[in-house]
Each structure stands twice: as C-alpha cells, then as structure tokens.
C-alpha cells in the first residue's frame, strides 16, 4: 500500500515541478492536462487508500529523517488513518475538479502554465499537511499552503490589490503560525517528541495547565489558517486571486486546515473542555459575524467568502464541543458544495468579463442554465435543506450545541442558519433571476465550455448525496476519533430539526420574496447597520489605522530618529571627539624645540605626581 501512499503524495509534486519547467513560456494546453491527470492519479490513489484503511486499518510509513539534533528527532513520516484519508480524498477530489475546471477558466491567461504549477504545488503541500505523522510535518504543509496561497492570491501580480491581499494573507498567517510554533515548542519540551502517537500517549501525564496552554497555542495557529476572528480579514481580500483558487484554497481545503488541526488533536482538546468551549464560542460568534457581513455585500466572491468564514465557525463549534467526527463531516460536505458555489461563480464572472458586482447582474438564468442550476443546488445544500449534504452535517452541529447545554451557542447557530439561507438566495436571486441589469452595462454573457460544466457535475452530485453517508462516515471515522453521544430525546430532536429547517426555508423564502420585487429600498443602505456591515464592522479600517500605519510610522521613527540620530550619532560623535581632540592638540606641535622640551617637562611632572601618589598594590 505504500506505493499508493507515495503516489498520492508525490503525484502533485511531480505535476508541479514538471509544469514549472514551462512556467515562463506562453500557454501550453498540455501542461494543464498533465497536471489534471497527475492530480487525478493522486485522487485515485487516495480512494484506494480509503478502501484499504477501511479494511486493513491505518498505514504508517517513515520515509526519511529530517531534523535530528539533541533530543529532537523529526522524520518525514506519513500516516494514513481514518482522518487523514478522508481529508486526502476530499482534497484530491476537489483539486481534480478544480484543475480540470481551470483548463477552461484560465484559457486566455498568458501565465496558464505557471498557474498549474502553483496549483499542483498547493495540492502537494495540502497532502503533506494532512498526511504527516508529526507536528512539524504538519507545519511544513501548513507553511507550504501558506506560500502557495500567497503565490495564487497574488497570481495577477500586476494588480496592486492582488499583491497586497497576498501579502496580507501571508502575514496574517505568519502571526498565527508563531502561536503554533510556540505550541510545538511547548509540546517538545514536555513530551520530548513531536510525533502524534507519542504526544497523545503522554498527554495524560502532563499538568493540565500545560495541556491547556498547548491547546491555546495550537488553536492560535488554527485561527490564522481558518481565518477566525480577529485574523479573518485576509480571507475576504484573498478573493483577488483567480476563482479556481478561491474554490480550492479559500473554501474547500486550506482554510479548513485549522479545523483539521483541532480534529487531529482531538485527544488533546478533549482533555481541556474549557478551552474547547472557548473555541466553540468563538466559532459561533464567527458564524454569526461573518454571515451578517455576507448579508449586504455586493461582491459575488466576497459573499461566498464570508459564507465560508461562517461555515468554518460552525465547524469550530463542533470541534470545540468535542464532536470531532461531525466537524470533519461538515468539513467534507462543505468542501463539496462551497467549491461548487465558487466554481459556479467563476463561470458567472467569465460570462460577465470579471465583473463582480451582483447588482449589475440579474436574469442570467436565461443564458447560463447549467451554471444556474448547479449554483442553486449548492446554495440549497449550503442553506441546509433536506436531503442535501448541508442539512445532515449542519444540523448535527446544532444538535451538538443543544446537547452540550450551550443553548446560547445553539441559538447563535440557529440564527446563523437563517442568515445563511437568506444571503445564499439573495445571491442566487440577484445573479440569476430578476431584472437583467447586465444589459444596461453592455455585457454579453455566455455559458462556459461544456467540459467545464461536466467537471462540475461530480461536485454537484456530491453536494446532493454526500450527506446520505452520514452513518457510514460516523462508523468509519469514530474508529479513530472520539465517539460523540447525543442524549437528546427523539422528540426534541425532531423539533430541533424542524425548527432549523423552518428558519432555513424561511430565509430562502424571504430572500426570494424580497428580491423578486427588486430587493430592499434604498433607505436601508443609509442605515447605520447597513453601513456597519458593508464596511465589515470597520475592522479592516481599524487594522489599517491602528496597526499598519503606526507600525510604519514607528519603523520610520526607529530608523531615522533612534538608529541614525541616537545610536549611530553616538558612535560618530566618539569618533568626532577623538578627531577634534587631535585637531586641537595639533597646535601643541609648534615645531619649536623649546616648546617640545617644555611639554616633555610637563609630562615628567605628571609622571612624578603619579609616582608620588599612585602606589600599585604590592
């Protein structure tokens, strides 16, 4: 089975390196095809491994040593167990679709080859992240996806906003990575190893404060990658990248890495329920917070990005409350329908010549039937309507929150579900139905190439059916992850599901009702809340005003005032003093022997005085 493991892991790397050879050449179609095929091979291998793990259990290989110093031993080791194989399958599946889709999407881009090189490199990093058997290996993938994300967000580097967003994403992630590194250090110095197995085996011997600290540090890392508040601003800005990138990285895979980390460290977090509850609370907050921002945004991709943020919040609620398999389940289903949503949005953008303002669209259904249907399916799934994928996973999370007695969290998520349904359908309505605004702006939309649509079909299918495998999924993953018992009586459960469905359907219905009639009146946009939400709670402004500008000013100050005017000036003034002393005392050398003799006598007097008063210690 090892060969499948290595195939799954290294096929993307081979793809990336091979395509990189042609990176600076003009478009070559075969690069995209070969990259897609190699990723597909990786996907097939992942499925083979899924079956294998199901029958034979986890697979663990140690490829080679990496860092060996002192007591520290870090190998390149890979483990394929119930959790990682689910991630592998999800990642490679979405990646394959995105690769194929990109052949169509990037058709006219002059950096076609470069794009596929980066995209495959991302898949490789993600595979390392999920397959590694130790924390540092995970960190390699963690940073690797960060790098690829930087490259891909800034793919159109000639755009100022793109390169700015890329840097923002990288730096925000770095802040969180520091927290994660601290967590790793703490683990190492308490356990003496960074292998998952050994760490989890020795955790129970540790002081609970230490475990809690580790948990917090690791979660800080997860917050960066998964764009949790207050490090969330980069995700919306990351939409500057090409849309397939948003689908793959900023919806389906990379941003869920934080959730994956918490699931992976489930044994750790289950020891510290308080920290877990804090994570869940933050998750619930973000779920609501992001959903509220999605309500008013007019940028097609940003709406979906906020939706992603909100769904990540749901995942963290589940993971924080100890329902790890449910978090993983939602992660998977979300990957399917959210990437579908993004890719559909990509089609729309293509049709609209990269126009993103949904107010300028409307009535696209006429010209883009397939895309409209796929996106609607994805939106329904996202809203959590039975029997689509989102219903099963999201509803479970609400149940968990209720089960834990965290009614407040439950309520937040409940409201969030309504908002989700509303903004999803606001988007669908504004884009595909209603008045044909695009005609005013002179667009001529057209449907994407057929193979692009066919590539999306698997995702569409999965968005519908993925939820039906809930019980198999639970059985499979709980072999490794902690089981989660729900103690709610059947009656209440039905009521809860009913309530959730109602609010979701209500949200949808409200959106359809409102936007059929041309949406909200202009007066809404004058309101305080509207402004607050559309400015993202002014958080980016706050960051700009109170972090970036002061930092720049402080840097200038430190350089010009402290380094130049104090430190360097001190050094120079020492030199200048010596120089000036020389200049002044130069006059002593009048050249007159009498004067010199006089100075000699002065020197002698000084020495005599010293001889008289200074007695060295005998």
């Amino acid at each position, binding site marked *: 089975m090892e060969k499948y493991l290595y195939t799954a892991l290294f096929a993307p790397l081979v793809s990336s390196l091979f395509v990189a050879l042609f990176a600076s050449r003009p478009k070559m179609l075969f690069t995209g095809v070969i990259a897609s095929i190699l990723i597909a091979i990786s996907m097939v291998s992942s499925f083979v491994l899924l079956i294998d793990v199901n029958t034979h259990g986890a697979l663990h290989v140690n490829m080679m040593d990496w860092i*060996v*110093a*002192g007591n520290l031993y870090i190998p390149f080791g890979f483990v394929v167990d119930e959790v990682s194989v689910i991630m592998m399958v999800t990642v490679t599946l979405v990646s394959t679709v995105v690769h194929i889709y990109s052949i169509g999407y990037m058709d006219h881009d002059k950096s076609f080859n470069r794009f596929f090189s980066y995209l495959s490199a991302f898949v490789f990093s993600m595979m390392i992240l999920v397959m590694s058997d130790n924390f540092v290996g995970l960190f390699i993938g963690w940073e690797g996806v960060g790098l690829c994300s930087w490259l891909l967000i800034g793919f159109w580097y000639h755009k100022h906003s793109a*390169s700015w967003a*890329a840097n923002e994403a990288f730096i925000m992630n770095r802040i969180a990575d520091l927290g994660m590194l601290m967590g790793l250090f*703490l683990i190492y110095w308490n356990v003496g190893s960074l292998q998952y197995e050994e760490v989890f085996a020795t955790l129970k011997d540790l002081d609970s404060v230490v475990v809690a600290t580790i948990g917090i540090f690791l979660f800080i890392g997860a917050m960066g990658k998964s764009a949790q508040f207050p490090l969330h601003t980069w995700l919306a800005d990351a939409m500057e990248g090409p849309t397939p990138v948003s689908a793959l990285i900023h919806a389906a895979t990379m941003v869920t890495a934080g959730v994956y980390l918490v699931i992976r460290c489930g044994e750790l977090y289950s020891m510290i329920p308080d920290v877990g509850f804090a994570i869940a609370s933050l998750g619930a907050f973000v779920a609501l917070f992001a959903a509220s921002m999605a309500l008013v945004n007019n940028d097609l991709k940003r709406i979906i990005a906020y939706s992603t943020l909100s769904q990540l919040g749901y995942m963290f609620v589940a993971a924080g409350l100890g329902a790890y398999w449910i978090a993983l389940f939602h992660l998977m289903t979300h990957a399917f329908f959210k990437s579908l949503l993004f890719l559909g949005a990509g089609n729309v953008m293509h049709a609209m010549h990269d126009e993103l303002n949904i107010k300028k669209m409307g009535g696209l259904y006429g010209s883009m039937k397939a895309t409209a249907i796929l996106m609607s399916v994805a939106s329904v799934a996202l809203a959590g309507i039975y029997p689509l994928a989102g219903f099963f996973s999201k509803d479970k999370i609400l149940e968990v929150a209720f089960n834990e007695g965290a009614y407040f969290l439950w309520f937040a998520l409940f409201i969030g579900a309504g908002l989700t349904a509303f903004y999803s359908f606001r988007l669908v309505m504004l884009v595909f139905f209603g008045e044909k605004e695009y005609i005013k702006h002179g667009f001529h939309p057209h449907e994407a190439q057929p193979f692009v649509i066919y590539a999306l079909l698997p995702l569409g299918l999965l968005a519908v059916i993925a939820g039906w495998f809930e019980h198999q999924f639970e059985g499979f993953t709980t072999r490794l992850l902690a089981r989660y018992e729900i103690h709610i009586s059947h009656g209440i459960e039905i009521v809860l599901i009913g309530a959730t469905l109602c609010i979701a359907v209500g949200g949808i219905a409200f959106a359809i009702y409102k936007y059929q009639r041309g949406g909200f009146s202009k007066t809404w946009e004058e309101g305080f809340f509207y402004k607050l939400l559309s400015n993202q709670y002014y958080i980016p402004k706050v960051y700009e005003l109170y972090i970036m500008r002061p930092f720049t000013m402080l840097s200038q100050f*430190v350089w010009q005032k402290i380094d130049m005017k104090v430190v360097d000036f001190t050094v120079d003034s020492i030199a200048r003093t010596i120089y000036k002393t020389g200049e002044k005392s130069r006059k002593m050398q009048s050249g007159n022997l009498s004067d010199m003799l006089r100075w000699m006598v002065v020197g002698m007097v000084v020495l005599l005085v010293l001889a008289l008063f200074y007695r060295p210690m005998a």
Partner: protein
Amino acid sequence: MEHILSLLVFFPAVAGLLGFLVAKESIRAYGISVSVIEFCLSLILWIGFDSANAGYQFVEYYAFIPSYGMSYYLGVDGISLFLVILSTFITMIALIGLSIEKDIKNLIISVLFLEMTMVGVFLILDVIWFYAFWELSLVPMLYIIGGWGGERRMYAAIKFFLYTFAGSVLMLVGILYMGFLYYEATGIWSFALPDWYLLQVPFKAQLWLFGAFFLGFAIKVPMFPFHTWLPYAHGQAPTIGSVILAAVLLKMGSYGFVRFSLPLFPDATVYFLIPVAIICIIMVIYAAMIAYAQEDMKQVIAYSSISHMGIVILGTFAMNAEGITGSIFLMLSHGIVSGALFMLVGVIYDRRHTKMIRDFGGLAQVMPNFATVYGIMLMASVGLPLTVGFVGEFLSLVGFYRISWILTLLAGTGIILGAVYMLVLYKKSFFGQVVHEENRSLKDLNAKELSALIPLVLLVAILGIYPKPLLSTIDMSVQKMLVLMDQKAIEPATKELIMKANSIGGTH
C-alpha cells in the same frame, strides 16, 4: 591528508601572491580556478572527516614560540567544518558572479587573501594566531570596500575598520589576561584553545573575560547597539564585498561565541544569559522594523542580516544541543541566503545602477527568472519549511524556549516582521506594473549570474530537505562541548541550568 588544513589556510594566500604575476586578462579565470580548487579541498576535508569523532581532527601542531606558549595549532571539528566549507563556497560563488572590471586584479587578490583569513579563523586553535587572522581579515575587506565601493566608500570603510578593530583590541586584552591566568594556574604559558578548555576560570575573572570577548564578538556579529557600521559597509561595498561580509565575516563573531565564550566561561555565560538574550531580541525586532522602513534594497537585506543574527546568538545562548546546533546551522543557512540576496541586488544594480526600491516595480514581468530566484531566496530568508532557513531558525527557537518562553515569543515576532519587510520589498519591486521606462528593457539573468545563483538555489532546497548530515556532525561536537561546559562550571546554578536546558519535561 596530513597537512590539508595548512594547505586550506595558505593555498589562497600563496595563490593570491602568485596572482600578481598573472596577466590582467586571465586573472578572473585564475581567481575562479583557485577558489574552485580551494572549495574542492574543503570538500575533500569533509569527505575525510570522521563524523563519528567529536574531537579535533587533522590536527597539526608545531611549537612556535614555546617559551610563551604560542604554537601553530590547526584542527577542525563539527562546529568549524561547515563554516570552512561555507567560506570557500561563498568565495567561489562570489568570484564566479563577479561583475567588476575596474582594477580587477587587485580585487581578486584581495578576495583570495580574505579567504585565507576566513578559513584561518575557523581552523586555527591557537588563540594568538586566531587573533591575527581575525584582525587580518579586516585589511582585505577595508580595501574591497574602500577601493571598489560606492560614493561614501571611504567613510564606510574606515568606520568598518575602526569599529571592528576597537572591539577586537579589547578582545586581545582578554586573550592576554586569559593566557596569564593559565600561566598562573599551571606555571606554563599556553595559548592553545584545547589547553584553555581544561582550565577552570574563577567566577570574577570569567565575568571580566566574558565582557572583553563579548565586545569583540558583538561588534563583529553585529549586535545592537554596535551594529551601525554594518549598513554603511553593506550600502557602500561592492557586491562581492557584501556577499562575503554577510555570508562569512559576520559568522566569525557568532562562531567566536560558540568557540570561546561558551566553553571557556560557562558561568559567565549563564550569568549574562538573560541580558544577552534581551539584546538579541532587541536586535531581532529593532532591525526588522528598520529594515521595513528602508528605501534601499540593499539596506533592507543588511538590516535583515542583523535581525537574523539575533536569532543565531539567541540559539547559541540556549545552552542546549538543539539551540546551539540550530544556531550553527542558521549561520550556514544565513550565509547562503544572505549571500544570494546580496548577489541578486548586485544583479539588478549592475543593470540599473540604482538600489532604490522606488526605481523598480513590476520586475517580475521583465525578469521572470530573476524574480523566481529572488522569490526562493526570500522564502528561505523568511524561514519557510523545506528551505534551508527554517531548520536553523526552528532549532534555535526550540532551544531557547527551554530558557524562557516569553523571550522566545518575542524573538518569534521576528518571523512575522521578517515576512513583513521581505514581502513588502518583494511587492514593491517585483509586483505591480512597470512604472519606469528604463525597466522595460532589462535583461533577465545571464549565464554567468545563473551559474553563480543556481548552486545557491540548489543548496537552499537540498539542505532544507535533508539537513541531517550536517546537523548530526555539528550536534556531535556541540554535545561534547556541552559536557565540557557542565564539567567546568563552578557555580551550582550553572550546572543546574545546563542540566535543565538539556532535559525534557516540566516546561511551562
């Protein structure tokens, strides 16, 4: 193999002398071939090196002035081996990538002499000779900066020379006092480092000696607040000078800490641990902030060097195998990465005759290969895993975490700030539209530059993925040194700290 160390040290100097006889047209080829031979010699040294032996190897010993204990004493161990290879490698790369035409003969001869002093510093075990090589290394560098530098080259060269010289003079006093202490304790004079290792220095004397050595090393590193010579030196030096200065000369200071301060004065090291660590953290953050504010591309990298050296020193003072091994590895990786970055700045300077960031923009469109290489080096500088930069930085920080978590956290902000200034630099100069017309016609890397840069890129990747052969060799010698420190320690607190720093468990 018996005299390979002497050969390594003096071959470049002899070749440099002979270089006066070589015709001007062929001097470049001559210089490159000498440096290649020297590099091969250092590789032979590595091949012949017994990596299971933690002690000194290939030792050569001749009594030089026996009545005063001076000897010609060469030896190599895991700590110095790779620094020697780094020196020869960087010299070779720098000569390959050399683009100066003016008075090239003297320049190449200066570089070869510089190579002798660098290799000498790392190989010599007699402290008087060490001092001699240490000081001699200033002279060729003074010529290189003063002769081929920018507009304010004289100011920069003299500042560089006097500043570092002032520091090392105090070190000389320390050396003499240490020799005297040895004489007092044993009745014979000796300036051989292995002899000194056996001497237990009284605590008070350790403090003074540590201070004297510290000043010499700290100025060379350069540590805050003794760093101001570095930006001038880098700003004015020609590319080859900056490359060697950043890649090797700064490492002499940090090597000095590992070779002298730690094993000779373990108690003083522990006593001054926290103050030094705080200086390191100031260096990391302060230099990173200044780097962010710079307008000159070369200055950004110069200040980033200071920032990285802060982590190197921090790792050295971690007092455990992880930290010290990591810091030595970080010296190597910083040598490779900063050398490469300075070469890259040199590449663009040769084309545009400016280093100001505002004169660039959109370079990625006109020079894709250049942008790629620059990007790789930038990522290595930022410390991305699987590049060479990560291993050393990770180990250094891991090591120091055992001493203090809060200081490690503060030092860790260096990796954030590092990303900030590097990415901003990259964005400003490579991304965006081409604003200046002159930049449209820039040529991408030529064959000569590629042949200098590709080995560096390969090294960045290879050592990032498989650092183990280096790490295990370094680790062996470092562990031996730690045992020595533990045995020599006088104060119980020192023993306790070394014990704690090297054991697992109980960290908060």
